[in-house]
């Protein structure tokens, strides 16, 4: 690493700790190791969730190197710590994608805010980003591959399931930022399409890290006592969930009265909570640690061995990285090079096994196919799958339930190359195809 880039790095990371595995400088493109950027917060509020993904990527890279690397070359991780600071994400992505020691691919980001910050950087410098977390949709970038769930792969099926259970009243609770707001907008439109009255929908937003849930839970209790079966759809993010669930159990709201289905609570988040009073509350994901498949058990064994912690848990974003990493490996082998444009073309249609015993394919809109599952919380902090889509569902970048995006699709194959194609007017509004 050259002195300038070290200085740049130090300036960018400020107080935060920056770990970087130093490689050979100024190699030609097809010699030396292949660099894999890992851009996850290792400090700050998101460290709870993101640091696990960093470890997982290191494990996957280790395993691949043991198996002989890629194209006969070794993989070399380049780890940075954007410290839960959205602008630092953009700066560090720029550092990763410039200079002689440019990375060939980035696996990273968790919050939508950080993804939105990195998006213009990877587009400008033509990088590759694999984004592993469920998100609000309404976006498609030529340089980003969305391996987490779009709303039609998580929120909509979850609501369908609750409707089939007789739920008629809906409390949509969320943390106040872009993902919950967009998801709730889609859900509200969807519920109204299905004949739910305005009065039967309650929407409430709270700040990050909120802990004073007493009046909101009591409001929900009141909302749910009007004689109609009520459910809470929770897009509450991060550690605000712990006091939220505690308040639910203290006020005696059990899953048989008012079930809560959450989109951001997984095995990792439940490790901080006593789950005995929460048994029966639900989460919707594309993977649960309790999923019954040999691929999953092998993955858990590897993970436990790698972390050295017998109680280590796996979760849905980890599966997304597992799928994304294997897809990228296959695409590089198919293209015979790590060149970004070649990999971008080669990866569409690539199909790899997922952890629930099926297969996931990369679609032309840079989203993947996944099964959707509903799990109920158990007293050991795990989820038991009570419902699952019969087949995998393809991610939809632009929601069909919002009037402004229902005519939009995304297709990055030649000759369209378009991330925002209006199928009515056949006008491309974003992407290479727009020019």
């Amino acid at each position, binding site marked *: 690493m050259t002195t300038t880039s070290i200085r740049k790095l130090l300036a960018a990371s400020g107080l935060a700790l920056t770990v970087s595995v130093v490689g050979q400088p100024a190699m030609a493109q097809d010699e030396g190791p292949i660099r894999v950027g890992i851009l996850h917060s290792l400090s700050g509020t998101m460290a*709870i969730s993101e640091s696990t993904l960093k470890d997982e990527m290191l494990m996957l890279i280790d395993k691949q190197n043991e198996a002989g690397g890629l194209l006969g070359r070794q993989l070399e991780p380049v780890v940075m710590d954007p410290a839960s600071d959205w602008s630092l994400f953009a700066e560090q992505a720029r550092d990763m994608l410039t200079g002689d020691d440019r990375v060939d691919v980035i696996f990273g980001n968790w919050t939508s805010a950080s993804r939105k910050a990195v998006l213009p950087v990877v587009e400008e410098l033509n990088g590759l980003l694999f984004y592993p977390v469920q998100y609000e949709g309404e976006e498609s970038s030529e340089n980003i591959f969305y391996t987490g769930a779009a709303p039609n792969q998580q929120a909509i099926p979850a609501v369908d399931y609750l409707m089939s259970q007789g739920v008629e009243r809906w409390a949509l609770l969320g943390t106040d930022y872009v993902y919950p707001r967009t998801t709730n907008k889609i859900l509200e439109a969807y519920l109204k399409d299905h004949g739910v009255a305005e009065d039967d929908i309650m929407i409430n*937003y709270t700040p990050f890290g909120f802990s004073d849930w007493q009046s909101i839970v009591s409001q929900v209790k009141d909302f749910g006592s009007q004689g109609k079966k009520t459910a809470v759809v929770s897009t509450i993010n991060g550690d605000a969930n712990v006091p939220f669930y505690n308040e639910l*159990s203290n006020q*005696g709201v059990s899953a048989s009265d008012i079930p809560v289905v959450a989109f951001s609570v997984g095995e990792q988040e439940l490790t901080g909570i006593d789950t005995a009073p929460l048994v029966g509350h639900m989460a919707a994901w594309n993977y649960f640690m309790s999923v019954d498949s040999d691929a999953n058990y092998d993955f858990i064994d590897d993970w436990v061995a790698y972390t050295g912690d017998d109680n280590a848990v796996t979760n849905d974003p980890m599966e997304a990285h597992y799928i994304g990493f294997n897809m990228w490996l296959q695409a590089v082998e198919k293209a015979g090079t790590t060149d970004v444009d070649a990999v971008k073309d080669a990866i569409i249609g690539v199909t790899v096994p997922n952890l629930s015993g099926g297969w996931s394919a990369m679609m032309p809109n840079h989203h993947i196919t996944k099964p959707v599952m509903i799990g109920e919380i158990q*007293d050991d902090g795990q989820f038991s799958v009570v419902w699952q889509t019969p087949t995998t569902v393809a991610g939809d970048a632009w929601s069909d339930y919002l009037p402004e995006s229902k005519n939009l699709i995304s297709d990055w194959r030649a000759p369209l190359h378009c991330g925002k194609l209006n199928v009515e007017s056949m006008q491309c509004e974003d992407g290479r195809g727009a020019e």
Partner: protein
Amino acid sequence: MTSMVMDKGPRLYRRSIAILLACLLTACGVCVGQNAMAAIDEPEARALLEALDTNDFQAKGEAAQAIAESSAEQKTRWLQALLDGRLGKQRRGENFYIVTDDSGREWPIIDAITFEDAGTGSRRTLDIFRINNNLRGQLQGLIASLTLSDGDEASRLAAAQRLVGEVDAASVDSVRANRDQEESPTVRHQLDVALALYAVEQGDAEALETLRGNLDTRVRNTLADIAAGDSALAARAQSVLDGIESKRAWYDRAQTLFFGLSAGSILVLAAIGLAITFGVMGVINMAHGELIMIGAYTTWLIQQALPGQPGLALLLSIPGGFLVAAAFGVVIERTVIRFLKGRPLETLLATFGLSLILQQLVRTLFSPLNRRVTSPDWLQGAWQINEALSLTLNRLGVLIFCLAVFAALWALMRYTRLGLEVRAVTQNRAMARAMGVRATRVDMLTFGLGAGVAGLAGVALSQLTNVGPNLGQGYIVDSFLVVVFGGVGNLWGTLVAGMSLGVINQILQPWVGAVLAKILVLIGVILFIQKRPQGIFAPKGRVS
């Protein structure tokens, strides 16, 4: 795809409620053939368990029902294991097992039919039978009816409560008969309500009187339906309903007041240490939040040292949190603050730096992840005063704790020698020294006292929110707000300001949401300070 099957779920569940309730109210066992208990042979037992091996929850529910009605000796244990998610079938084989301990990854298992030790199993070798919410409710009902031999008053009452709105033409006679035999007046009253509600549904106007003032939401919902209809009862039902609604509204107000006071008590606890260091000594201590965090971490540490005794640990944390935070306070005062006396800007920057150091220290020592502090049983759940009003025990505990801390602190400042010296030093430092008060020692003790009280706030907060390195950050702004609003240097001001901000916030929250409520409160305080810079309680007399 499964919606048709699922729709039947609740109905099945409903039917089983009726069966269960009838069982609970009469002498139990008869309904499920407990008396005719005789061992069954192995093929029969196997067939009963085999029926559970399906992915259709409705079929599984019927299989559980069949087990409960069978004469198998093992049935209670089977149903309990199914409820606990510990009953399973061998993946490649025909045996059924019960997992006796499902922690870790290799579980000890026993044969489900003979209960003989069967070695170990794991996720890979066992198919655990899954249940969902409806099935869970049904299983709990079945187990209750199997294990309940003599239906004590509490379970009879619970059954009677569940009967409200469930009485129908088929069961009304048996409920009536039960009501006449019932000895306990509370259970009898509950049965009266259930019967009256049924009678009202049948058009009986007299029964309406029994329901007057009843706070049960099911009564309210039924009456609302009748009042909205055009039956002869509509007008009378409306008048009863109005009475119920206005009674509920009063309890709702009481509940909002409680929510407000409990939110306020957290503000007061967080701010009262600052009221001493900032209010009385004039030190702007940006590390105040981190002292709160230290108190919370002390609670966690004491709990780690005393596993299985969260109650005792919490009680010990009260002096523990105080002493640890006070020690940190004294060190901070000795090493930083006393050198910056009279230089508020530098104090502000130095203590802000300290707050970052303390946060990082905790991150390095205990990891950046949140720590889980368990609540003792007596701080979990709620005190149910009636159908419309319940007070959560952890909030109630914090409210009482807050008032106790305030009273102790007030007494300390008012009646002890230290309090006298503190007041003397803050009113006129030079004069106090001339009178023989050791001002530097008083400074140290005062700062330690303020820090210790912050530690107490941390002990209380560990019961309500996440214990993590960022715990204190969320409270520092609120604390300054409360102290400035209440009037600098005045403990009563802090109490009144904290409580009123809490109540105002809770009143606004349902109307405008949590974010806007906070903004409105902040704007309100800013405007108030513009009008009255000295806060609610102005310091009396000359302050030099």
